[in-house]
């Protein structure tokens, strides 16, 4: 039984539960499921300065979402620490060979230790990946008005054209980056 709890979930459990979370937020308080708005709420709370984009009452429109994000952190602890899968993620043999071919040798954990560790911040590549990557995630999702949750699930489930455009854009750019930028970051 305990072993069962540590096992990863198949797609047909994971996907439907994501859909249920999105529907639950509508039922609770008519809130659209989305996570990237939290970066905006955090900016509005911490450092709004005189920027119009951050001059709104975040306690009224954003508190629910910040609480939701706090829940994600707790859930990450439950699923990623208490119920952690002791095995490396079971990606396909093809993915394994592909990434090994790029020079990746450690497949344990949720993120490759080779790329994501505190010491990496002392290297240019590490700063580009971790700080630069975070910057573009924040900039891009704010610009697009949503991320994989808000556009990829909520917007698509509501058949909204803007969300389809954004989702195609981030999958296309993601594939390009994985094929052409990632090799530069891993090698050397």
């Amino acid at each position, binding site marked *: 039984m305990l072993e069962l709890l540590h096992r990863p979930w198949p797609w047909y459990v994971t996907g439907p539960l994501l*859909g249920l979370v*999105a529907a639950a937020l509508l039922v609770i308080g008519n809130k659209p499921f989305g996570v990237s708005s939290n970066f905006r709420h955090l900016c509005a709370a911490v450092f709004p300065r005189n920027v119009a984009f951050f001059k709104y009452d975040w306690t009224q429109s954003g508190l629910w979402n910040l609480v939701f994000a706090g829940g994600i952190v707790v859930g990450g*602890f439950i699923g990623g620490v208490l119920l952690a899968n002791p095995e490396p993620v079971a990606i396909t043999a093809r993915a394994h060979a592909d990434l090994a071919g790029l020079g990746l040798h450690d497949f344990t954990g949720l993120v490759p230790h080779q790329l994501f560790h505190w010491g990496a911040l002392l290297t240019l590549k590490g700063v580009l990946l971790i700080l630069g990557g975070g910057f573009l995630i924040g900039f*891009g999702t704010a610009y697009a008005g949503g991320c994989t949750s808000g556009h990829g699930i909520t917007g698509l489930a509501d058949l909204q054209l803007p969300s389809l*455009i954004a989702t195609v854009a981030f999958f296309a750019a993601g594939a390009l980056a994985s094929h052409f930028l990632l090799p530069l970051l891993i090698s050397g």
Partner: protein
Amino acid sequence: MTTAAPSTPAAAARERLLPAYLAAGVLFGIVLTKGELTSWFRIQEALRFDGLYLYEVFASALVVAMPLFRLLERRRVRSLTGELIAVPPKALGRGRRYVFGGAIFGLAWGVAGACPGPLFALLGAGVGVIAVMILGAMAGTWVYGYLRPTLPH
């Protein structure tokens, strides 16, 4: 412990529901980690077209969410706050923000292998350096807000 009473009935309703949002977030965080959507390896597998897992997750999430959203809206169901449930529409405009913003986010997603939801889950899963990435995302959001009047939308 005494806390200041909320000033309006609407504010009181909002605060009463905060535990429900927290619970939904906890569930989402567990789904993200147990479903391996926090795994950099899973994201690379999908974006390098080496496996179907992420696509199966997305497709099945939509297969569940789409009819549920329709049902909630068509049946004019009210949320626990008494509002008629409606997913707010995103304005299409000239659509450029979705192309450019989506592409910029995608570029980072393709190497960093994490989107906003998983960033918060990874923090909880004990990957401390992700905190720097979240600070980076706040900085990126701030710069977007600052440049917003000058950017094509």
